[in-house]
């Protein structure tokens, strides 16, 4: 059981983060998920700190994306596209690095995040939905600020043994 959890820790943590995010944890009158996009940070950190970790060759990532779409009332595939943008950048970054340079990893995360949010904006326009640019910008900045803290927390604790 423990071996199973260790092997699939990335997918399990990502899935749990989606389930838990539906429990209201508020900060300044708004849910915490309004400020930080925890899932995108998790995907990036898991991949960058363990290049052999592939979320079941991408299948679990796709599946978790569908679950998130259902719980958020989004069209199927919306979250999956965002997840795979960040995952692809992390995969590229982890394949070219000779040694870990935190700043370059952080910057490439910023680039992947901006690209993912731009794609999301495009998809929402197709859906005739309005999005608040200010809210998305705050979320983007705070997600970037939260990245180093989560990086420290996760890479030093429990993902080295995860291989799927």
């Amino acid at each position: 059981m423990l071996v199973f959890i260790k092997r699939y820790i990335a997918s399990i943590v990502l899935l749990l983060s989606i389930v838990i995010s539906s429990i209201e944890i508020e900060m300044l009158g708004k849910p915490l998920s309004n400020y930080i996009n925890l899932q995108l940070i998790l995907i990036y950190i898991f991949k960058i700190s363990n290049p052999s970790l592939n979320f079941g060759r991408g299948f679990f990532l796709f599946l978790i994306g569908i679950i998130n779409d259902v719980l958020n009332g989004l069209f199927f595939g919306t979250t999956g596209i965002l997840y795979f943008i960040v995952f692809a950048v992390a995969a590229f970054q982890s394949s070219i690095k000779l040694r870990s340079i935190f700043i370059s990893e952080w910057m490439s995360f910023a680039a992947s995040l901006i690209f993912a949010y731009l794609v999301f904006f495009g998809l929402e326009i197709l859906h005739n939905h309005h999005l608040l640019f200010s809210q998305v910008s705050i979320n983007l900045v705070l997600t970037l600020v939260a990245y180093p803290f989560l990086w420290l927390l996760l890479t030093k604790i429990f993902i080295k043994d995860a291989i799927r």
Partner: protein
Amino acid sequence: MKFASSENVDVKKNIIIFVIISIILFFIDRSDNKFFKVTRSVINDGIIYTTVILKSPFNFIINTTTSVGNFFTDEKIIAKNKIEDLENEVQKLKNEKTTLLLQIENLKKITGEENYKFKTIQTKVLFYKSNILSETIIINKGSRDGIKSGDPLVKNNLLVGKITEVNFNSSYGVLITNINSRVPVRIGDKNYNAVAVGNPSSNNKINLEFLPKEYSLNEGDYVYTTSIDNIMPDGILVGKIIKDKNENFYVEPLYDFNQIDYLTVVKLGS
């Protein structure tokens, strides 16, 4: 040392494949295909109810932690908080009574009836998710219970939101404060027609669009739904008019959106 293992090449291929599948799924879902709609309803119900089960231990932990925390809190503080809560409750009930009396008066004028002519159904809120991607309420009743897209969500005769999508055993809804919500309303004694739209900068304000060219609103005027084109039943209380420093009028919702646990769906199709 492996620079390009077969698994890594596979993963790169899989990323491209899954992105293409996601894009195809997005466009099929968006196209409102009948067969896909049924499939989606089944998948939605399955995932929603599985997540409810998965979420329950976390809810239990949070509730237990809160209870334990309260146990160690000073009794005086607890008593003080209770008194404050009760005072708030009394004030809230007074307000509710006033608004309900006004609403009944108005309904009598319009329909000569005191109750909605539509059937209602009680529902439990399974999820309320609010993040930058979306704001969604998921309730535990769906098309099998006669719920349809566009049905209003109310509580204590106050409009909370409306249904946006229906599965077999669950439905999605959106709050009236959401920027994507549009509700036809009438305002005050003069019954000005307008459309209430969620305010982008505040969760406690609703904008008014399509007001007549000449209008005179007063602070405190009540705002009700109107049945233009039969997309909403007439006479559900939405909120009251407030004015900001720049002399702009807004609607302040009367419902406390922190208490979304059980809601009533007014079935328009009935």
